[in-house]
């Protein structure tokens, strides 16, 4: 019963608010609604609506695969599955950064009106990206099973820990991106270029073996995107259990990003309002 709840809070110099996480959970209806409303807004008045979530990476995959088939004479089917998987996982991470960067700005109306934990806005962005990813993944799974049924195996169960790692890695990205962008609006413009560089330097659409060449080997060994793609593709495409070293690397990255994001959140939680 929330109507009758009386809440006491003291705002002062050393304002350590208890129950931050409890509030995030208490207001779950709110941020879940925001994520769904963003989704509705994106596909308002479009004929194919939410189908675009799967259609867009599929079409992009077909374009890239066709080009590479003509230029490098690669086998189309197998390679298109490789690209499709790369694109949807990448889109999730890019979404976390992009929607994270925008989340405080679009929520200005709420932030100026009610005091809620600031973390719910990046969380909303994360949820939005997770929903989009889930649908895109459904599209990917159908595409793979139709074109290459032999890919399917019990190893697909390894996807569950992969999903967990994806969220664990994406969440702090959204928080960090949100806080940097509210303070330095240049971030939004600038990060697009950085992401573009990472996109080229990670095994998303270029074949995996390119990244094991001497010039790129050291980078690939620490590149979280490469590790993420490996633990996604190994069970699905290669039919082998995922590389534990890649999991280890992902966990190190995720822990580091979480530590950074929480530190930034604690420092900036109450200051965000002054940056509008």
């Amino acid at each position, binding site marked *: 019963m929330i109507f*009758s709840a009386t809440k006491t809070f003291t705002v002062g110099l050393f304002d350590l608010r208890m129950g931050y996480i409890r509030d995030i959970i208490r207001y779950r209806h709110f941020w879940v609604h925001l994520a769904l409303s963003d989704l509705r807004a994106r596909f308002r008045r479009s004929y194919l609506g939410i189908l675009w979530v799967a259609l867009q990476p599929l079409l992009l995959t077909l374009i890239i695969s066709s080009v590479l088939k003509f230029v490098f004479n690669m086998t189309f089917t197998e390679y298109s599955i490789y690209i499709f998987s790369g694109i949807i996982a990448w889109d999730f991470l890019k979404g976390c950064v992009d929607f994270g960067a925008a989340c405080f700005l679009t929520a200005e109306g709420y932030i100026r*009106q009610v005091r809620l934990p600031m973390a719910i806005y990046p969380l909303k962005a994360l949820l939005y990206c997770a929903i989009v990813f889930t649908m895109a993944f459904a599209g990917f799974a159908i595409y793979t099973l139709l074109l290459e049924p032999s890919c399917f195996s019990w190893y697909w169960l390894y996807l569950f820990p992969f999903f967990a790692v994806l969220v664990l890695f994406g969440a702090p990205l959204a928080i960090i991106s949100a806080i940097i962008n509210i303070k330095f*609006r240049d971030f939004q413009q600038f990060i697009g270029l950085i992401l573009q560089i990472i996109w080229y330097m990670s095994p998303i659409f270029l074949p995996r073996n390119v990244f094991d060449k001497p010039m790129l080997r050291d980078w690939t060994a620490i590149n979280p995107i490469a590790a993420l793609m490996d633990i996604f593709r190994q069970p699905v495409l290669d039919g082998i259990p995922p590389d534990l070293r890649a999991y280890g690397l992902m966990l190190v990255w995720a822990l580091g990003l979480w530590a950074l994001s929480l530190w930034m959140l604690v420092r900036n939680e109450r200051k965000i309002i002054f940056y509008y």
Partner: protein
Amino acid sequence: MTVSSAETYLPPPVEERYPEGCFVQMDNVILRYPIGPFVKGSIKVGLFSLFGHKPLEARVRRPYITALDGVSLTFMRGERVGIIGRNGAGKSTALLSIAGIYPIASGGLTVQGKIQALFNIGLGFEPDATGRENITYRGLAMGCTPEEIEKRAEEIIAFADIGEFIDMPIRTYSSGMYVRLAFSISTYLEGDILLIDEVFGAGDAAFQKKAVERIRSLVTTAGLVVMVTHDMKIINTACSRAIWLERGRVRMDGPAQEVAEAYLKDTAG
């Protein structure tokens, strides 16, 4: 409950719903609004400073504006408080700090009770969603569950009285309709403490009258109302107590009519 029962200055008996009562206590509150972020926060400024261009922050004396300068006030349950003062006196800032939106630099601020705020109209509305959907959004932002909002929705719509517009996107609304809906949502999604910032201007006379009635009846059932307005007529009819702020300090605090009169005399002279 009748309007006349709220006329008395004594707070009505505490109901079971609010066993502890609700109150706002500000104890020597100082609030500084930093000017820094706006100048510091861009790479452009950083680049210019490399070439000896001093950012604005270095040129102005202080990096902040003291918006509230040692304000001590206590609002108890059952009060209808009006805050008046010239532009920039810190009226809205006071409300925003009570709502917990602005952090205070020093002093103590204790708020007990659930806050229901009605600040800038339009803020907190999703322009592409319908009025009905916006009732849900705002309710959820206030911490209500969808079922609770569902229960209240009809009352809200009835009070807002904007006819078929309730099912149209908010961007098609007139400013008067904005106010009607926002006011209606904020007063029907019950909170203990209602904060209202200068929103009556856009409503027509009939709505203003209705809103004043609503505020008076609210205090008898809910708790505490604090509002900022420049309209002395509203102060006189809706409020029991008025605070006159000047340059972030309390200049006068007392019965609404007296304070309003003194303020008007001061501004005229």
